[in-house]
Structure formats: structure tokens, C-alpha cells
């Protein structure tokens, strides 16, 4: 399983990247962490003419916090995200998700931006971006575009990033003090892609949940917010009838795709189970916040 022949280039600047993308279009692929791209090449599922290695662009790496927003550069290694004091202090959902992402060696090379741009339907990070209402930042030439996460994940391995653009980072609002969250992933073995997963966030207002966001992964062809289910809970106490209503509404939100890990009915059922459990955890979080 050896990669097919390709040309290799390691640009020293973003400008050079865009020049190359402009010149080669679909024949080029971006090499960041390589943890998804290299297996694809070794399995000969892909034959790019040019590999553009962006690992030299240090300006694309790093985690910073400013004015209530955390900025994570696309080239930040997943291991850095896992260890980051900023992430662990301010982005609880991401903090909970990171140990589920692959394994140590993969996280040492794999990048934050790579996972989001690749948008594997069973990956954790795209769902985290949805749950955290993140903004993805893409750039082409000098022009930057900001795209809400809810508009970024469009289909199977398909995002709103156009071929000439590079994902350069994400901006994520920090958890408010009344944030409650749940992160649940069903997988057969540690580090596997999810059979079904759910990243859930809400803000506790009194004894009710506001701004509920339920981001599923491993269910459809992309990470997806269950909007109607969230609506059924928002502004309410997460008691049994409310949770039941959310489960009912879920059938309109999700149309699961069968894969090797489960058929549609199974995934639908598991999504409902996770919803019940996650809402239960959010409710307990509200209880704790109320009694704090």
C-alpha cells in the first residue's frame, strides 16, 4: 500500500499556498497533519498531482483568548488542543471531546483544522463546532470569510470551504458561567469513530434550559444540529415530558444513514437514547447551578 507518485511543495507563506491552489485546482491537495490524507493515498483512493504541505505556516497554529472568544488556528495539533489550559477552562464541550479523538500518536500530528475541513461524518470536532456555535474562518488570497458552523458542514466530506480557500482557524465564544453541557459517544472501542455521538450544550436560566444545541455525529452524512428537538426543550425545564417531546421531535431532525456500524433504525434509536441521557445530564447541570 504505497502512495501514488505526486509532486511535493512546502510553501513558506499563505500567499504561496493560494498561488498553488489557483494554479492546480482539483489536482492539488493540502497536507496538514496527514492523519486522514496519508491513509487515503496509501489506499490509492486519491491521486493528487501536487501535495501542498502547509506545516511550515507557523502563523496558522496556536490557541489564544481575547474578548470572550477563543481562537484556535487550523494548524494547531490536536494534542495541543487536548492539553490547552484555555480550552479546558473555557470550552467544556471541546475539552470533553478531545480524549475521544483517535489516539495519542494521531493527536500528535493531526490538526484541529484538518479534522474540521475533512468533516468526517463520525468525527467529534465538527459536532463540537456546532454545539459551541463556532465561526469557521476561511481565506483565499487576501480575502477572509467567516462562516457560522451551522452553515459550514454541507454534506459527506463537503463543507462551505471552496476549493481555492484554506481553513485558517475557528473562533469560539467561551462558555458563559451558566453553561451546562454533555458529551456522549457510543463506540465499540476507545478511539474508534462514533457509532452515534452527541455534543449537547445549553445555558441554565433559573431552572430552565436556554439556547439548547444538540449536535449529532455518526448519524447522517455530516455533523448535524437537531433543531426541532432543541426547540422542544429550549425555555423549558428538562423534565420527563419535555424530554419525551424532544425525542419525538428528533424523528424530524435526523434521517440516519446506514453504515457498517449500524442500520438507520439502530442509529435513530441510539440517537434517541443519547438525547435522553444528554438532556438528563443538562438537567442535572441546571440543578447543580441552581443549588450552587
Amino acid at each position, binding site marked *: *500500500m*504505497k502512495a*501514488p507518485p505526486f509532486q511535493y511543495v512546502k510553501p513558506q507563506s499563505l500567499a504561496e499556498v493560494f498561488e498553488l491552489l489557483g494554479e492546480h485546482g482539483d489536482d492539488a491537495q493540502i497536507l496538514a497533519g496527514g492523519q486522514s490524507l496519508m491513509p487515503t493515498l496509501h*489506499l*490509492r483512493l486519491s491521486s493528487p498531482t501536487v501535495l501542498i504541505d502547509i506545516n511550515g505556516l507557523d502563523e496558522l497554529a496556536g490557541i489564544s483568548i481575547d474578548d470572550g472568544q477563543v481562537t484556535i488556528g487550523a494548524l494547531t495539533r490536536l494534542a495541543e488542543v487536548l492539553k490547552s489550559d484555555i480550552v479546558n477552562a473555557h470550552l467544556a464541550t471541546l475539552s470533553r471531546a478531545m480524549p475521544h479523538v483517535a489516539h495519542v500518536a494521531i493527536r500528535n500530528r493531526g490538526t484541529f483544522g484538518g479534522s474540521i475541513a475533512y468533516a468526517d461524518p463520525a468525527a467529534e470536532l465538527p459536532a463540537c463546532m456546532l454545539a459551541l456555535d463556532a465561526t469557521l474562518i476561511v481565506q483565499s488570497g487576501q480575502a477572509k470569510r467567516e462562516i457560522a458552523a451551522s452553515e459550514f458542514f454541507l454534506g459527506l466530506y463537503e463543507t462551505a470551504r471552496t476549493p481555492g480557500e484554506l481553513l485558517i482557524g475557528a473562533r469560539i465564544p467561551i462558555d458563559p458561567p451558566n453553561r451546562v453541557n454533555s458529551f456522549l459517544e457510543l463506540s*465499540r*472501542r476507545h478511539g474508534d469513530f462514533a457509532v452515534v455521538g452527541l455534543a449537547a450544550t445549553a445555558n441554565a436560566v433559573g431552572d430552565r434550559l436556554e439556547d439548547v444545541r444538540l449536535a449529532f455525529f455518526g448519524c447522517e452524512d455530516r455533523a448535524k444540529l437537531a433543531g426541532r428537538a432543541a426547540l422542544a426543550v429550549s425555555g423549558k425545564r428538562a423534565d420527563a415530558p419535555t424530554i419525551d417531546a424532544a425525542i419525538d421531535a428528533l424523528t424530524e431532525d435526523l434521517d440516519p444513514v446506514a453504515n457498517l456500524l449500524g442500520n438507520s433504525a*439502530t442509529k435513530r434509536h441510539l440517537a434517541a*437514547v443519547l438525547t435522553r441521557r444528554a438532556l438528563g445530564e443538562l438537567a442535572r447541570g441546571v440543578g447543580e447551578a441552581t443549588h450552587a
Partner: protein
Amino acid sequence: MLSKPFSRSVWAVEMADTMSETIVIRAPIGDSVERSKARRLANGRGRYTDDLCLPRMVYAAFVRSPYAHARIVSIDASAAARAPGAVRVFTGPEIAAIVEPWTGEAAHLPNLRSPPQYPMAVERALWQGEPVALVVATSRALAEDAALLVEVLWEELPAVTDPLAALEPDSPLVHPELGNNLAFSHQVGRGDIGSGFAEADHVCEQTLYFGRHTGVTLEPRGLIADYDPTLDTLTVHHSHQAPFQMQMVFARHLGIPEQNVRVILPDIGGGFGLKLHVYNDEVAVVAASKLLGRPVKYIADRVESLLTDIHARDHRVTAKIAIAADGKITGLSVDDICVIGGYSNTIRLSTGEGMLVLMFSGAPYDIANYQATLKVPFQNKNIIAMYRGVGQPIAVTVTEHMVDLAARAAGIDPVEMRRRNYLTDDQFPTTGPGGVHLEYLSLNTCLDTVVERMHYPALRTEQNTYRASGVYRGIGLATMVEVTAVGPVYYGPAEVGVSTIDGCTVKLEQSGKVRVITSITDQGQGTEVGIAQIVAAGLGVPFADVSVVSGDTAVTPYGGGAYASRGIAIGGEAAYDAARTVRDNALSLAAAILQADPRSLDIEDAQIRDADTGTIRMSLAELSKIGYTRQDTLPLDVQPELSATRSFNPKVPAFVANGIQASHVEVDTDTGFVTLLDHWVVADGGRLINPALVDGQIRGGVVQGLGAALF
């Protein structure tokens, strides 16, 4: 009247005493001595097949059928042959021209039909992954590039995939010349199954489906074939378990005199039965080396491995059990449909999986009425052959599951059910329902042990308590009866050329240290350590004085290698005999030197001693030095013979072992996910040569089984 398995006399043979009267069991036999060879491996100094490079070596990659069943209309390799680094491209017919085809048939199973098979598909591909062209180039990457340029024109044919549909009269045929897809069928039984069911108070029936498994050695299959046309010699460095088998196969099928064929085993990254077999792609590589006159390396990549390493466990079993009200089993029937892919595997046969289900279902139990049938359909899938356990995991699962179902139907606790139905100590020796001779099985002792270890009654109570609060925990038992170290009665009548003996050379070096050259092979089990322990004990030297060589057909005695857990059971006996012979020869020489009666002497701790008092008379080092370099000091009629080779032919058909395992799990009934809480293993290992290595084998086997069951 049902037919009997093989020939009845095979299994009812009188059990001769397999151990000599004067067998010496002393340290380090029974000690958990460290496997010092592992130190090499822990420092990254292992040398596996892919680590070897030979002069002018080239690399192989295959073009494989993307279809389950397709006719090869044409192959155009011209572009591939011109690709950068390409040396040659071979197609099926070119390789077939110099290779004798083989079959997966056996002399003692006249109704096992399997047409001749060539290394690569000639007219039709019979499974997705069957090789159709072989590209040889100056690197694996370039060979893969060139392989993509081979243009194969295919005519897709209907594929036979469903086992039941395969047996329907209107099914497409895997081998049209055979008229149907039934490769083999067989049945065994005893008693009167009809009355066994008629007189029952409860009858339970279940169909169990087992999907295909493969063994996944972490080091994929591979070999380097090195043919020298100037001498008509072939040397193969092979990641394999049975080098003498492969020596025979390469000699016979490539027309090279056997004494010119040498198979050498480097370090091997796991075998598990996968690397026991004749693989058509490997034979193709040897043929390529013969045609090119230079070394050709082929290492299967992981995709090729998963696709084309032999598969196993593909069964559909319908079982019925009948019991009386008191839980006594009055009948057991098992109908197994065990598919085997496009061909029966040569030599090892693909019928093993199914035959062992017939022979071992119900084995632990006192069952008078038993019937088991086997149907083996061809299928347009990869070949089925022997992977660790070979059909016995199926036999155990089916048997224990049916016993549990019956227990539930009769309201009897599963442990109690087993107590009521196990063969008891006084019933041995006996014949199992499937016709297997059972010398003695410590069934009740093992059951008592596991019940005690798992605190069974308390665990059941706890289970009920949890159930009441909606937490579902399960407790499972699996009694294991396993055939190991099969002797010549299994492979002999098949006339497949497999050796079931093993041999060992023990020789003293000039310094009195010991070199052992054994025909058994080691893929990580540590059998070499066990052999060294046995020689050390038998000869009377420290374990550290013994080194072991194995895995080279030009160097070791002839033997079977590693399969069916035979390394120590058979190879160890040969090593012991050889060690005792060298001991006797050494004492004979010592007697001549010391002017003593050899029977009054012994060797212990590398010293020749008075047997009675332990007084040291001379060192083994002194003796060896004299024997090898100072024959001038010896009487003229004394011929020092400080090495010996002995072979061991097992006198029993097989060593049948037993044990029991128990599992404690929690099932999340909302998600269906199972968490393993506890797992217990009780195994009767007979005499344990090295308990730590035994533990390692059991743990590894258990985890492979848990992986298969739960993940």
C-alpha cells in the same frame, strides 16, 4: 445406521504409555524461566521477513480480481511491462505453465471434491482478491504503480454468496464441471436420535450464524523466494509455521529436487494458523523467482491480508437438544452448513472447520443419542482454512448455548445442568458423541474450580438484585474440550504429505554448552524456551547453558513445525529423548575416562557426578573437551558421540485437553453495548513446562476470542 468418522479404529486405539519409565522431571521443567530471546525483540533487533534484503532482489505486487466471480476475457500487460522500474509482468497461464496444480482433496475423504488450483486465476476468478497478474519491479511502490496499468477485460458472472442459496438446484455454480456447489458432506452419530427426541420432556432448537473471521497477524504474510538457476536450488525466507511442508510443496509443484529446496524462517510476527497454509500468491512469487533467476520479495499489505489470508468460522448451525425433566440430555443434533470459498484449501483441507464441529459438539457430556451433519458449499469468497481453534470455537458455542437453553427450559441452573450431564471421572476412558477418543477429561474439577473462583452463588444473587433495579448482567459458561497435537492418524490417511512427527538434535559444544536444533517452530509462543528447559532437565545442565536453533529445513531434523498446539507435546518429547541419549553417551564416555560403571554416574548442573552421593567426578566441560579434542587420551575402541538426533511419533491420535471459562458482562439494554466485567479461565494443561508462557498463550487466545465475540 449412520456412518462413522474416519475409521473407528483410529480413535479407539489403545492408549500406550507415552512416557518412558525413567522420565526425569526436574528443574527447570515447571519453572517460569524468562524468554531471553525476547530481549532482542524488545530492543528492535528482531529480523522479520521484510527486514531481509538479498542481492538483485525485486518486489512483487499483484493484480487481483475486483469481482467475486468473473471470467478473464483478456489481459494486456504491455503498458505495465514498460512502466518505470517494472521487470516483468506474469499472468496466470505463464505461471501455470511451470507449476503443478494442487487440489484441496484428501485420499480418506473420497467425497471431498475440489478442482485443481493454479497459483493465479487462469480462466476465471472465483473470489474478490484472487490474483490474476503478478508484477515484479525494483520497489514495491513501482510494482503497485505498474499493477494499475495492467488492463484486464472482465466478464462478470453471477456470484454464489449465500450458503443456503448455494445448495439450491438453480444456484449459479462455482465449479460448473462439478454439477453443484456441494464440496463435501458428512455425518456422524450414535444411538437413536429419533427416540432420544421422542422420549424428551423438553426440546429446544436454535439456528446460530457465525460470520467470517480472519486471524490478523500483526506481521502480514510474506516471503522472499530466491531461485538459483545455475544450481537448480531454491531458498525461501518465509513467514510461516511449517517449513518442511513448504519445502515439499515448492519441490513438488515447481519440479525442484527436494534436497535443493531450503525454507528458512526469520522472526515471525504471529501465526495463529494463518501462516500454516499454501497460499497461491506465495507460490506464484516462487514461480516468478524461478523464471527470473533472482530473488523476489512479496509482503502482503494489510488490505491484501484481510482479503486473502485464509478465513474461518463461516458457519450456519441448526442445533436441537432434548432433555428429560431432570435435565439429563437425551439427544443432541447439530446440522452445520460451513462454507469454504472458491476451493478447498490444499493439504490442510477446508473441511477441518466443519468436521471439528461434528466431532466435538457435545463432547463434555454424557449423550447417548447424537447426530451431526455437515454440508460444505463452495462460495465465491476467499478460501476457508485453519485459524486458531479450527471449528472448535463453533462446537463449544453451539454446545454450551444449547445446554443453557435446555437448562432454562427445564428451570435448572446452568452450573447444576452441567453437573448433571458432564461425563464423570469413572466414565473415562470413553468415546465422545462425535467419535473422539477421550482418555480423561477433568471436567468436574474444572467446573468446581471456576465456580469457586467466581463466587458463583453470590454472583447469581447479585445478578438478580441488579436485575430488579434494571441493570442487566449476564453470566456465561463455556466448557472447552480441545484436540491438540494431532498425530499421524489425522493427516496420514489424507495423504497430503504433512509431517506429524518432530525431531530434535542435541549436541554438546567443546565447552560443554549445549546447542539444540529442533524441527518445531516458534512464532512468539516461546516453544523454543520450553524445548531448552526440557533439554536442560533431561541432560542435567543449567538452562542458561542451552541455546536453541529452529526454522531451517537444511539444518533441523524433519518435522511438522507449529500447528494444533503440538510444539512441546511432540517436539518436547523428541528433545527429551535426544537429551537423554546425549546424557547416556556422555556418561558412557565419562565411564571410559573414569574407569567407572556408567550406571553409577549422573549429570547434574553440568557436572558428572556419582549418582549415589552427588560427588563431582569431572565437569561436562572437561568431558566435551576430551571428547572433541583429546581422543588421543581415550582407549582405541571408544567413539565419543556427543550429539544425538531423535524423532518422536505421537502414539496417540491426539491429546484432548479440557477447561472451562466464565464471563460476567453487563448489557446496556438501551444501546445494546456489552461491557465485560470479569472473565475467568480454568484450563487443565497437564504438565506445565513453563507456567508463564502458558499464561501468555491463554491470555492471547482468550482476547482473540473476546474480540471475535464482542467487537
